């Protein structure tokens, strides 16, 4: 059995990157995720796997370094926290437009503005609805443990390359700063240049006589061409919606009521469900693992035997909009959220839930 190591979620991201064959990390310090780059710099993977680690001058530069690296068919990633991700949104739009795979991890803190360095989930809209300009989507994975932080690095790269699209790990200050035991998976080697050329014929690896030049751009000034490009992207997003929805459930089968929560809040609401069951309330939990694509169909199924659904978030109510769209008026949908970096306890969530179902009757 592989060794289990106690580490922070942020450290898990760094170790996973080295061990899953990541070629390059480009980042800029920001609380609460600086341990990612600190761990990488301490591990010096350039001596072991040859992975490049570079501290950029800004998040703007980091994300554009990802554009360059991804263009070469390399597995490249960055990590940041909310204000830094806002700066990256320009680059993310370009990466999505040029159909380039990359991984961005957002260890979310409270906003808007400089906000707080304490945990938040207020970047949901930014992550799943765009953030940057234009019609694009990112695959968004929401880890709920340090092991998830580790495992989702490899998964995000796999999905990013499968769809030639940016993938985002939407974490939060709780999951990033919390230590749990993490099992390190077997090492995967980095791809050689030959393997990259074979697998990713679109990459800018240098034009050889046997192929046309490769140009990675998001620009198309001809209206018809540009609409076609957009349709290609949209078709890809429909494929993701078809194939990549991931979620976990806790006692939803017989549930009268369901809480929907992701990331750290899904952990807290697991305890809420346990407490509710002790009180004889048939409460279940739906934890979306992918926030885009969203488990819309499963939520629709749940409405057939549940009376009420409540979204619990560290925001003023963002994911709840997607829950409402999925429920489509069939049952009432409630919301409970805390702001400012305050993380509610399981008991607090249960109280809020009880208040809301009281009003239903």
């Amino acid at each position, binding site marked *: 059995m592989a060794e289990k190591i106690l580490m922070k979620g942020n450290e898990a991201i760094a170790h996973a990157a080295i061990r899953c064959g990541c070629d390059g990390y480009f980042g800029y310090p920001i*609380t609460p995720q600086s341990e990612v780059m600190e761990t990488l710099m301490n591990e010096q993977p350039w001596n072991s796997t040859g992975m490049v680690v570079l501290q950029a001058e800004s998040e703007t530069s980091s994300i554009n370094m990802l554009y360059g690296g991804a263009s070469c068919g390399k597995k490249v990633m960055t990590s940041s926290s909310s204000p830094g991700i806002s700066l990256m949104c320009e680059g993310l739009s370009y990466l999505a437009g040029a159909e380039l795979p990359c991984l961005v991890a957002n260890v979310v803190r409270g906003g808007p503005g400089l906000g707080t360095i304490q945990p938040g989930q207020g970047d949901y809209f930014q992550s799943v609805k765009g953030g940057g300009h234009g019609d694009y989507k990112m695959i968004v994975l929401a880890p709920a443990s340090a092991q998830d932080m580790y495992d989702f690095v490899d998964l995000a790269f796999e999905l990013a390359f499968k769809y030639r699209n940016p993938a985002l790990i939407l974490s939060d200050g709780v999951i990033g700063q*919390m230590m749990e035991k993490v099992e390190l998976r077997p090492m995967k080697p980095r791809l050689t240049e030959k393997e990259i050329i074979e697998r990713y014929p679109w990459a800018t690896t240098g034009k050889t006589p046997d192929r046309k030049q490769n140009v990675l751009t998001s620009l198309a000034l001809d209206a018809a061409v540009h609409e076609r490009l957009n349709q290609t992207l949209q078709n890809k997003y429909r494929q993701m919606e078809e194939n990549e929805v991931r979620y976990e459930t806790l006692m939803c089968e017989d549930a009268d009521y369901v809480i929907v929560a992701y990331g750290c809040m899904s952990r807290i609401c697991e305890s809420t469900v346990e407490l509710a069951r002790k009180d004889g309330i048939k409460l279940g939990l739906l934890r979306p693992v992918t926030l885009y694509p969203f488990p819309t169909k499963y939520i629709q199924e749940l409405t057939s035997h549940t009376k009420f659904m409540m979204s619990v978030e560290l925001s003023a109510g963002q994911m709840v909009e997607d829950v409402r769209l999925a429920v489509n008026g069939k049952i009432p949908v409630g919301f409970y959220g805390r702001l400012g970096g305050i993380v509610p306890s399981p008991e607090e969530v249960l109280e809020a839930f009880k208040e809301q179902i009281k009003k239903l009757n």
Partner: protein
Amino acid sequence: MKEEIIIAGFGGQGVLSMGKILAYSGIMQGQEVTWMPSYGPEMRGGTANVTVILSDKKISSPILSKFDTAIILNQQSMDKFENSVKPGGLLIYDPNGITRHPHRKDIKVYTIDAVNISVELGESKAYNMVVMGAFLKLKPVVEYENVLKGLKKSIPERHHSLIPMNEKAIKAGMEKLVQI
């Protein structure tokens, strides 16, 4: 078995590292563990606290409002966490610098004079291990051999020469706690 612990004090008292050693000891025993710190500017000289959960089963919420045990190392933390101990739970505190002692009658209260014990040992840095020893004496949730393994895992190898001193501190803490 499930033990939910809050450790709180000043930054620099070794609050976070004590939590880490406890958590690593739990892993060595095959337990599930979480270690959730307060983080940010309050770590830098201000108060620091960490929630550690050790359990035989998968841990759901790492954020808690009530604890089985509170380990309190300064007055602010006493004010903040005394009422967060579950009825019948345990509160261990270092009386140095405490002006308002705990008033609750429905919990078990112990003191550990870790400042003086660690000074007597000649290693004030082992302060947090004295406190941890006191906790483990009262709640032997992890076997001693696994505590030593956890200690080794938590301390960087270049500092492994300090392990015997830390062991001494743990033992001293086990012997010298006082029930109130």
